[in-house]
Each structure stands twice: as structure tokens, then as C-alpha cells.
């Protein structure tokens, strides 16, 4: 069978190498290569989706090359119902980011090459079936994102990039220890994630330490209070497309790892630790919502709502770990995975729209705006739609996901349902943001603002359409997710 997963994985890298080896390429040519490579990767991801995943059969479409059988290391990639939606999401977000970035003229060749490298790394994390391969891709995303922020960010980009790199590296190195512990604990020693999942090798103290190490890594990445402090800084200084990728894809690496490693490779220990993890999730969701309420900078506001939404995902995973009944476990896990996809789509759209606003106004302070809905109706209504999706309005992407998470939570931790308060707060803050920026009387200084260009519509429209589609027909995605979650022991 044609190695579709590997082709999709390495297409962006081929584009990046092509760009690096064409020293004279113009900005235009660089963007053309970038859009073509990420577009082809999107087609590849869509074809992988079309091939589908069988229900309850673990990983499928597996492609592997033995490296050295004696050390249990190999190049192994494949997808299941949990990773497949994230692969498609990643390919889509990179495609729209590169379409949106087509106006970048400053060192365009390096910019596009870095994004393509980052795309291969992100896809790699989701399709890797070898723990070392997973870790390699996981770390390469850091290097790529560091240079994106440091090279094309706003005023304080140096400090933000440094904080991001050091913080997340500190976060991710414990995972390396956990992977080594899993490797040394398995018999025969192997890095094959399928084996580690089918037969979790650790128990007792070793499993507890490994779980703690993994939680540190994935909490920093997700991010969960109190290790979220790198996020607002990185987001405010990152270029728009960088923020889209950071929020849409990189945060998912944390929750994806939480499911793939912590939940699947140390299930018993996670079951015991679930109340603590759930408490972190609840607190993080509420904290994110309340801090977002206090923001006046539109981009920081969106950044903090990410902390809120990812808190729900963490709660969903913890509930799935704690649940004794198959039904509430599947319910919560389905919700958690769908929430990752919804958050990627909706927050990606929000960051794009905020970036478009900033390109026009060169400010993100909500107090400076007013009445923009009349001046730039397409931008305005798009933002309203995305904001409604983000606050969890029924019929839009977040609703089915959050609904399932809460339903699952109700069965396991009834007290944790206070987290619903977060929805009320986000609703309030988004309504206030819409009111201050887009409603009211138009200010004179913005009267000349241009509405969205064709390129910008092209970038934002797919995400908005998807936000509606997932809201109206969540079963399209849930069917795939369910194929994997139903089989979890």
C-alpha cells in the first residue's frame, strides 16, 4: 500500500529543504512553495482520513522500517481515531497560516521554511508510534517555534522566545526520563508505543514517578495552571500565524501526550491520580476564564481563554481515567478529543481575525476600538461567529465537546461541575469584547479601515465553516474519535 502517512508527514519537510536549497528565491516564490507543500500535505491528510480507521482495532495505516530490532527502535508511524482528527487539523491550520502569511516580505524564505519544518514536526508528534520518534518531533517543534517568535514577533520577541524555549524545554525533558523508564521497564526492551500501550510496563513507584514526569511535561505544554505563565507572553509577541499554530496545534501536543502516554501507558496510576489531575483541570479552566475577563488586550484575552478551554480537555481526560463504567469514560474522552479539534479550529480563527485587526489598527487594546461592525462588516461578523463558537453556543464547534465532557464529569465527579461557571464567564467576556470593539458608535480614526481581502477570507473561511460544521454535525468527527476511544481498556 502507498505510504500515505509518511508522504504526508515529510511533504512539508521536502518543501522546506527545497526552499533552503534555492538561495535566490523571491518572497513570492517562497510563499508559492509553502502554500503548495502545505496544500499537498492537507490533501494527503484528507486521503488518510478517507482511508479511515477501523473501530476498536488500535492503530492502522501503520508504516514501519526496522532500524535495529535488538534495541527495539524503529521508524513507526500510523494513526488511530484520536490522532487522525488532529493530523487533519494540523494540516489545515498550517495551510491557512501559510495562506494568511503570504504578505510577509521580511526574510520570507526562512519564514516559510521554518513553518514547513514546524508542520512536519507537529504532524510527526501525532503519527509517531515510537516513543523516541515522538520525543524527537516533540522537541523539534520547540526549536522551530523559538525561531518563529524570535525572528518575526513583536517588540519583546527576544524575551518571549527565550522564556518559551527554556520553559518548555524544562517541561519536556522529564518526558525523556519517563520514556527511558518505560523502555527499561518493558521486556523485551522496546520503544514501540503500541507495545507500551498494550502492556503497560511500569507499576508501583516507578509508574508514579513516570506519571509525575509526564504530567509535568504535558501540563507545561497544555498549559495548566500554575505552569501556564509562558503562554500569554509567547502569544502576545508571536506573529499572527505563529499564534495560530501555537494555540491551534502546539497546545494539543500536551493534551494528546496526556492521553497517549499518561492515560494509556500508566493507566492504573493515572486512575489513582485522576482526582488530582481533575482538580488541576477544573482550577485551570476557571482561572483561565477569570484572568481572561481582566484583559484589555484582545490577543491576551484569546490566549487566556485557551487556558480555559484546555482545562476542560484535561478534566475530560482525568474523568476518563477515573471512570469505572465504559460509558462515561468514552463519553468524557470523546468530548476531550473533540474539544481539542474544536479549540484548534475556533481559536485558530480568533487569532487570525485578531491579527487581521492588528494589521489594520496596529493596536489590540479593546478600549481603542468601537463600532467596527459597520466599518468592516465581514471581519466583524466573522469575529462574532468565532467568539460565539468559543463561548460554547449550541450549534457551534465547542458545544458538543464541552457538553460531553460535562456529562461525563457529572457521572464521576459531580462536584467538578462548578467548572460550568467558566462558560458563563467566557460568555460574559466575549460579549463585552464584541460590544467594545464592534458595537456602539464608530470612531472617526477607523473610518478608513478596509474590510477583509481575498487572501484573508481564504484563510479564515475554512476555519469558520468547520466551526459551524462540527457544531451542526459533530458525528462526522466523533465517529472517527469513537472508533478509538471505545476500544480503550
Amino acid at each position: 500500500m502507498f505510504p500515505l502517512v509518511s508522504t504526508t508527514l515529510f511533504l512539508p519537510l521536502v518543501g522546506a529543504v527545497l526552499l533552503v536549497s534555492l538561495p535566490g528565491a523571491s518572497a513570492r516564490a517562497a510563499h508559492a512553495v509553502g502554500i503548495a507543500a502545505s496544500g499537498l500535505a492537507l490533501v494527503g491528510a484528507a486521503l488518510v482520513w478517507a482511508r479511515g480507521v477501523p473501530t476498536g482495532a488500535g492503530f492502522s495505516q501503520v508504516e514501519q522500517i526496522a532500524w535495529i530490532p535488538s534495541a527495539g527502535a524503529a521508524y513507526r508511524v500510523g494513526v488511530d481515531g484520536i490522532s487522525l482528527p488532529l493530523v487533519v487539523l494540523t494540516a489545515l491550520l498550517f495551510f491557512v497560516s501559510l495562506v494568511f502569511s503570504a504578505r510577509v516580505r521580511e526574510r520570507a524564505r526562512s519564514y516559510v521554511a521554518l513553518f514547513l519544518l514546524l508542520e512536519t514536526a507537529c504532524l510527526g508528534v501525532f503519527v509517531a508510534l515510537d516513543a523516541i520518534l515522538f520525543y524527537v518531533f516533540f522537541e523539534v517543534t520547540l526549536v522551530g517555534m523559538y525561531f518563529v517568535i524570535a525572528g518575526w514577533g513583536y517588540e519583546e520577541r527576544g524575551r518571549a522566545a527565550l522564556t518559551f524555549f527554556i520553559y518548555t524545554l524544562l517541561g519536556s525533558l522529564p518526558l525523556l526520563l519517563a520514556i527511558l523508564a518505560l523502555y527499561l521497564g518493558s521486556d523485551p526492551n522496546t520503544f514501540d508505543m503500541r507495545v507500551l500501550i498494550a502492556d503497560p510496563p511500569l507499576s508501583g513507584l516507578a509508574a508514579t514517578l513516570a506519571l509525575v514526569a509526564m504530567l509535568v511535561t504535558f501540563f507545561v505544554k497544555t498549559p495548566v495552571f500554575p505552569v501556564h505563565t509562558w503562554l500569554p507572553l509567547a502569544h502576545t509577541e508571536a506573529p499572527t500565524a505563529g499564534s495560530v499554530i501555537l494555540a491551534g496545534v502546539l497546545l494539543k501536543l500536551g493534551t494528546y501526550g496526556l492521553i497517549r502516554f499518561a492515560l494509556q501507558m500508566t493507566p492504573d496510576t493515572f486512575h489513582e491520580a485522576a482526582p488530582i489531575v481533575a482538580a488541576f483541570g477544573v482550577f485551570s479552566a476557571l482561572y483561565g476564564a477569570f484572568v481572561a475577563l481582566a484583559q484589555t488586550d484582545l490577543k491576551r484575552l484569546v490566549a487566556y481563554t485557551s487556558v480555559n478551554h484546555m482545562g476542560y480537555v484535561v478534566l475530560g481526560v482525568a474523568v476518563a481515567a477515573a471512570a469505572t463504567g465504559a460509558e462515561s469514560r468514552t463519553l468524557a474522552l470523546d468530548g476531550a478529543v473533540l474539544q481539542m479539534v474544536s479549540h484548534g479550529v475556533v481559536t485558530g480563527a480568533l487569532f487570525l481575525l485578531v491579527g487581521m485587526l492588528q494589521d489594520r489598527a496596529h493596536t489590540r487594546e479593546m478600549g481603542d476600538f468601537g463600532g467596527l461592525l459597520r466599518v468592516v462588516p465581514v471581519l466583524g461578523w466573522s469575529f462574532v461567529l468565532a467568539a460565539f463558537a468559543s463561548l460554547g453556543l449550541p450549534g457551534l464547534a465547542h458545544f458538543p465537546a464541552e457538553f460531553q465532557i460535562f456529562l461525563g464529569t457529572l457521572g464521576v465527579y459531580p462536584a467538578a461541575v462548578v467548572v460550568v461557571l467558566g462558560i458563563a464567564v467566557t460568555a460574559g467576556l466575549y460579549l463585552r469584547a464584541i460590544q467594545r470593539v464592534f458595537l456602539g458608535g464608530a470612531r472617526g480614526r477607523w473610518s478608513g479601515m478596509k474590510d477583509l481581502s481575498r487572501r484573508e477570507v481564504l484563510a479564515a473561511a475554512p476555519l469558520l465553516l468547520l466551526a459551524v460544521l462540527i457544531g451542526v454535525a459533530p458525528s462526522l468527527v466523533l465517529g472517527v474519535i469513537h472508533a478509538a476511544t471505545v476500544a480503550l481498556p
Partner: protein
Amino acid sequence: MIALLQGMGDGMQDTGTSMARDLSLLAPEIAVVLTAVGALVFEMLRLPRAALPFTVIGLLVATGLTVPLIGTETVVFSGTFRVDPLSEWAKLALLPATVLCAVLAHPEVKDTDREGTVHALFSFTALGALVLAGAGDLMFVVLGVLLSSLGSFALAAYPRDDRATEGAMKFLVFGSVTSAVMIFGLTYLYGATGSTLLSELGRLEGTPLAAAVGLVAVLVGLGYKAAIAPFHFWAPDAYDGAPVSVAAFLSVVPKVGAIFALAQVARELPAPAGPFGWPLVIAALAALSMTYGNLAALVQEDVVRLLAYSSISQSGYFLLGVVALGKTDLALPSLAVFALAYAATNVGAFAVVAGHGRTLRDLAGLGRYAPWAGGAMVVFLISLVGIPPTAGFVGKLLLFGAAIGSGYAWLAVIAILNSVLSLAVYLRVVVPMYGTPKEARTAGLPVVAAWVVSLILVLAVGLAALGLLGAIA
């Protein structure tokens, strides 16, 4: 060479066939001796220009002669010298590194008097490191330290200006004292075991005091050679005063040789009965060296000094593999792979420094005006941190695995915290590289060749390391 002659002397007692066998197993070392002597002859014939090509070819031949030996595990000359994975991989890592340093030295020593001796000294010092890496006898440890030290002193003093003289003087005094301490302490080991063979060190079981004195002596002597804290004081000044190529050489070749000699000694030591014993001492040195090296590197403005302190911290990482010896199968492969990774990475980083300036200010804007050199430097620095997909990552992965596998998980945790600290160190170099250029400098062909080869090695070892592992284990 002295070492070799003595080895030959021992060999005489054996039969003719075993002599021939021993010499054929030592073919790479013999090639290194001939290379060194040849370079010296060219210098004497007043053809110093020929010394470099001769050195390059000779050392590459020596590397080639090592390849068929891979997988051999035996001893020669009555057990005094070992042809085992440690000594084989030391040759495969250090001889190419010496070649790169010699090439790198070309622009720095060109048209000075005694140009040819530099290359001869490189070969002699490399030979000393190889003698250390294959030592099977206490006398070989001493000979290796002396041989590599004598060459190193002269190399460090080569520029003959104040800074070089001061650095080399410190180096000489420090080296003489520590070597004397080592030789003094080794007499206790000899007295307690009745043999100078390392394989007889197991007899130390009943004599803890002699064992302790002897171990301390070995640690002092080899710790100085490997620039492990607290025996590192000479290193920053000696590197700083020396030509950049010599600093690159000193930070790689004698260091790896000394670490491997320590491994040869440690693998023969009896395992301690309780939780305290030699592994704990080495683990403590590892923690100290990693932490001190990184903290000191954090405040350097001169990139050569920064890399000097970073190499002190990298010595600490090496010790993770030494601690794990005998307790896990990962120990030897981790040392070998990390040696390859470290050699390629460090030589590459020094090569970029040699080409584009030695202070942080000089490197400003490097990534903009010379994107390839800047990109290569970034790869070298992230390899020093241990971030994938570089060689440094694989090396450290194996070292961490070895430490955890031998029950030293706490040491692995310290190592990881140090990796984060080291990221802060190396980012201090990366950040100005993407700032505004002060002045663009063009690097000469030898420098470019050195970092291009290093870059290829760093990436190749990174991507193929697990395959390499099969060959080592």
C-alpha cells in the same frame, strides 16, 4: 611513542606469531606514530607545507585501519593494552577530530616558524589520548597522561604571546602537580594488588584504604586531563590563550581519552558493598562538573571561554556513563556515542568561532550575513544542549538511560536540569547571531571545510545513531 616502544618490549617475550598479531591489532596506533614522525621530518626538511596534507592522510589511514577492528575485544602485550570497544571508538571519534583540528589550524599557523611541529604535536597528543583510551595497565595510564600533556603544553604555548604563555604556564604547573599526585597514589594500588594490570584491580576488595587513595589519585590525574571540576582550573585560560584550533583540540581529544581511561579503570573496580563507594564519588563529581561548568559559562562574554566552561560541564555528562559501567548494557554504547557526538559538535562550534570571531559581539548578525554558518552554529549549540535530531541528543539519551538503568535516576534528573541551564548558556550565543550585524567576516576555506564536515557528522550521527548502537553493543 614511548608507550608503544615499551609495549613492543613486552611483546618480545611472546612468540613471534603473537607479536605479529599484537602489532597488527595496533596498526592504527602505529600509523599515528608514523604520521607524527613524518610531519616532524617534513619540518626538518624545511617543507613545513607538506606536514598538513601528510597528517591528514596519515590520520585518515589510521581511522581506516580501525574500521576492520570494530567488534574485536581482546588484549595485546600481555594484557597491558586493550583493543576493545572503548579504544576502537576512541580512535573513530578522535582521529577524525584531530584531522579537523589540524585543518582548522592551517590559517592560524600558516607562515609561522615551526608550522610543521604543530601538526606533529597534534598527532603525538592524539596518540597519548588513544593510549589512555586503551589502557589496560596503570603504566599505560601514566604514559598516556604524560604523552598527551607534553604535546598539549607546547600547543597551548604556541602563539608565544603573554596570554598564551600565561595559560600554558598554568596548564604546565597544574598538569605536573596532578600527574605527580597520580603517580604517588598509583603506587598504593600497585602495593595493594601486586600488579600494575588494571584487570587485577579486583584484588582491592580487602584493602579499602589503599583502594581509596589509589582511586583518588586516578581521579586527580585523569580529572585534570578531562577538565572535570574541581580539577579544571587550567582549562579556560589555556583555551583562551591558545589558537582556536588548539582550544578545539584540547577540549576534545585529551578529554575523551582521559574519560575513556577512567572508564577502563572503573570497569575493573570491585562493586562497592553498600550505597557508598566509587560510583557515588564519580556521580558527585559529575553533578559538580555539570553544574559548575554551566553556571560559569553563563557569565562569559568570550565564546572560547564559554565553550571552555561548557566543555567542563560536558565532562560531567560523560561521567554518567562511567558511573553506570558494569550495571547496565547501555554504559559502553553511551560513552562511545556521546564521544562521537561531542567530538563532532565541539570541533564544529570552535570552527565557526575560528571563522567568525571569538566574542559574543563578533558573532552579532552571523545568522543574517552568513545564514549557512549561522545555521550550522545553531545546530552545534542545540546538539550541545542535547535537542533532537542532533548527535548530542542521542548521546545524552543513552547517558540518561545508562544512569537510570544503573539506579542513578537522581543523577539523570540533575543532568536534565543542567540541560535546561545549558540552553540558557547557548542561547546567549544564538540571540546576538540573529541581531544586527556589526561587521561581516568571511571565513577561509579550511574553516568552512571543518564546520561543514562537523555538521554532516553531527546530523549523520544524530540520524543513524541507533544503527551505530548495533555496531557498538
